[in-house]
């Protein structure tokens, strides 16, 4: 039966038509999505002066690590790399703790004033003061021009708090009750029972937070002026807007270094290498963790 249907399907002219369109479209999407990253990777491993001649599509013509060496030997870029890494680690951990603890309190059905707390949370999702009052707030809290502007304002995200609350509520009440009878307080219950049972939601939200921290250039651009607080994502924008190499290599490098540099790389290849440093961590964790990425949007769409 199944076999017969299959035979009929393949012979249908409409089927061939639909399949052709479908495969053309998915091949196109597949290539158009991946090729830009692949191309950047190729260019980032090519000699800059040579790359400027064009004609490189699939493989580096003059293979070199110089671009990456330049990125990781430049004080400014290296500093930005460490700022990005540290804020991603610290920011993600801090916001996971803050958001989950807040959500655990809220998830308790008999919590006093629960309705009031919830409405404060929901209202904050739909109404915002806008960027200007927000900037004034950060400025008055002395957060502008401070490393803490990367950590503190993103501690609690209303939407993630709600995802946590939903997850915590799905944990059977009996588990908490029995722990309580054994004399555990809410702090212990949270640490010993709730957190170990909630690894999927922690993983999902850690990923979202991590990606946010790693990709964020906005806070750097608008809330800081100190060059030492620049993140890698922000440096990338800086590199787009700049075309003279000497200014990119400024900061620790000598005239001689610049002269040597001029022969091997161009702003273009440096930009590609920096871009790869930003993209590669995401691409590397992506295949393994993408199911967690998807979980977030699916949970959201059911609500």
């Amino acid at each position, binding site marked *: 039966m199944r076999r017969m249907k299959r035979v009929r399907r393949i012979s249908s002219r409409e089927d061939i038509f639909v399949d052709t369109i479908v495969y053309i479209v998915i091949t196109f999407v*597949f290539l158009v999505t991946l090729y830009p990253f692949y191309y950047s990777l190729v260019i980032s491993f090519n000699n800059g002066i040579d790359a400027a001649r064009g004609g490189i599509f699939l493989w580096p013509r003059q293979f070199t690590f110089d671009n990456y060496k330049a990125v990781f030997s430049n004080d400014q870029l290296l500093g930005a790399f460490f700022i990005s890494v540290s804020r991603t680690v610290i920011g993600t951990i801090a916001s996971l703790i803050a958001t989950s603890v*807040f959500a655990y309190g809220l998830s308790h059905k008999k919590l006093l004033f629960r309705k009031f*707390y919830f409405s404060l949370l929901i209202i904050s999702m739909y109404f*915002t003061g806008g960027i*200007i009052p*927000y900037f004034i707030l950060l400025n008055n809290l002395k957060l502008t021009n401070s490393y803490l502007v990367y950590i503190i304002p993103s501690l609690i995200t209303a939407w993630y708090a709600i995802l946590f609350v939903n997850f915590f509520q799905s944990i059977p009440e009996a588990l908490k009750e029995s722990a309580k009878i054994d004399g555990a307080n809410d702090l212990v219950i949270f640490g010993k029972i709730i957190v170990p049972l909630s690894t999927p939601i922690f993983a999902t939200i850690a990923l979202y937070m991590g990606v946010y921290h790693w990709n964020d250039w906005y806070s750097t651009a608008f809330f800081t002026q100190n060059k030492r607080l620049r993140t890698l994502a922000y440096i990338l924008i800086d590199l787009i807007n700049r075309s003279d190499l000497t200014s990119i290599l400024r900061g620790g490098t000598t005239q001689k270094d610049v002269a040597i540099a001029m022969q091997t790389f161009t702003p273009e290849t440096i930009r590609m290498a920096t871009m790869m440093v930003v993209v590669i961590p995401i691409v590397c964790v992506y295949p393994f963790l993408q199911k967690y990425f998807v979980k977030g949007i*699916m949970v959201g*769409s059911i609500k």
Partner: protein
Amino acid sequence: MKKLNYGGLTSRNKIWSTFKEQKYLQAFTLAGIVFLLIFAYIPMVGIIIAFKDYKLTSGFAGFFTSKWVGFKYFKEFYNDVYFWPIIRNTMVLSLLKLVFTFPAPIIFAIILNEVRNDKVKRVVQTVSYLPHFISWAVVAGLLFSFLNQQTGLINQLLVSLEIVDEPISFLADPKYFWAICVLSDVWKEMGWWTIIFLAAIVGIDQEIYQASIVDGAGRLQRIWYITIPSIKETIIVVLILSLGSLLGGGLGGSNFEQAYLLGNTVNYNVSNILQTYTMTVGLSKGRYSYAAAMGLIQSVISLILVYSSNYISKKISGSGLF
């Protein structure tokens, strides 16, 4: 009288004892609430500076102590030389995205659903939403290198295929700006929103398809008469979401990033939008009240859009978000 008092006392005592019993939970929650009050509610109060002459040095107190000026800054914005270009640019960019970025994931989800090889389907889908997790800073970098006039890949292709005689300077020519924004937005966000639509399609009862095959329906007919009508509700919900965030750039919410990162002095007359101008006026020039007024206009329009699209969808289909 006496009895009532007594009763009030015990219930207060009861509340207090419950509160003490929940001391950890209350502490957890209140810490979060304090955070929200500071980072979400103080800025909401701060909106009043749109009607005042606020100076940054006056701090939080300045929200209340600075002088009322009524609608002065709203009038100034209306008379600003950039007012009409900004309105036009913001509207055009938002509407173009609604027209192109919104249907793209629906079409792609339907196409993906027609892929019979599950492995191919999964790989293509997984790849398609990778760009969602890439920063606009990177996407802008990719655009700059691909569209570069001298070394850009697109120009190399166009010239070698003899489609154009001279390389085009895409990023410096205002007439390409909107197309670049829309296409890069589709590139970045299509796969992500496909997840929702594909999930809706997968949820359709397979028996309906089986029955239609028995009735002799072809694949195109099945798509048209079963798949699309079955995901109508999902389409409407996502449409409301994207209408609500229309000014921000719809599903991707990328208007600001694109206009800020791809805008330059050459394409300023098309890339200058409400959000970027708010930033220029507010943060670069330090005119906070004026910028807050522009921000308020934007919030009010967004709110009206959310409510009206929700209302319309309730009228038409009987379903809405709230």
